[in-house]
């Protein structure tokens, strides 16, 4: 399985929370970035992020002057961070569940930024879709099969069909594991 560190963008630029929004825009335009990571003020301080969306939704939409507004007024801090070894499918699920599109990748220090664009461009979900909770699905299918067989008898058609489902899931899971070993 691909991990966050395999697809993240390592070209990261940070900005101070006290910088103006105009400075943030200049930095993003100059570096061709869609988000900036907000510097921590000390080592226990959480990371923050400011995105294009923050600027358009909170500054441009209201005609505020970017030269007088500061990054800390529109940033998201603390922000959701991703560990480098998190699987890409889990990154996608985390993004979907929390409604975010990008997050810093952090392990002790800032390593990169991972975004929906990175998942789309560098992920392998088209050729190797991975159901992140397949082991749980197998456990559930096994419980279900046992229940059906206890109720309807071990030789019943329903019992055989229920175990077929378990086997199919197991085959998918081992196929995924083989893919993972190869990649």
């Amino acid at each position, binding site marked *: 399985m691909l991990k966050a560190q395999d697809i993240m963008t390592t070209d990261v630029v940070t900005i101070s929370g006290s910088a103006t929004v105009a400075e943030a825009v200049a930095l993003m335009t100059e570096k061709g970035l869609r988000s900036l990571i907000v510097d921590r003020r000390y080592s226990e301080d959480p990371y923050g992020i400011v995105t294009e969306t923050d600027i358009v939704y909170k500054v*441009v939409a209201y005609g505020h002057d970017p030269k007088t507004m500061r990054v800390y007024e529109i940033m998201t801090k603390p922000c959701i961070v991703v560990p480098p070894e998190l699987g890409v499918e889990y990154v996608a699920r985390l993004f979907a569940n929390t409604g975010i599109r990008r997050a810093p990748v952090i392990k002790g220090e800032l390593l990169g930024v991972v975004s929906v664009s990175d998942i789309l461009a560098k992920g392998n979900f088209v050729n190797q879709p991975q159901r992140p909770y397949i082991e749980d699905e197998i456990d559930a299918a096994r419980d279900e099969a046992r229940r059906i067989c206890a109720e309807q008898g071990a030789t019943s058609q329903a019992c055989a069909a229920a175990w077929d489902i378990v086997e199919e899931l197991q085959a998918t899971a081992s196929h995924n594991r083989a893919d993972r070993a190869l990649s």
Partner: protein
Amino acid sequence: MMKAKDIMTQAVATISGSATVAEAVASLKENQVRTLVVERRHPDDPYGILSETDIIYKVAAYGKDPKQVRVYEIMTKPCVVVNPDLGVEYVARLFAQTGVHQAPVVSGDLLGTISIHDILTKSDFVEKPKTYFELYCEEFPDAPEARMYDA
């Protein structure tokens, strides 16, 4: 005042609602765009849109096979569309209020798409931020509120 048509992206990639998500991903990569406009089925049909986010949130996040999922299952249709003459500040406000990140620019025909990125990189909001009042005065220069007085 800058308008949607001044900053929109004119190169648009379209896709059929019945295409597979795998085909949509291939088209996004090939055309180097972040959004696809879903073709109308007849002239009265509304426009639809498919974004990177739709694909990641609804397909990749669940490990569904993109070759088995169709565009119509995850697209947004009807979608918010923008008039080419709409001021950029109004586009930004519309986006903020509806939570969208991109929209087709339509006037009879599909003219382009406009995104948060277009607003940030091509508009003049840093040099000339416009409040609602200033936009109003530009639009109605003869209104009493818009009168300028020499101090």
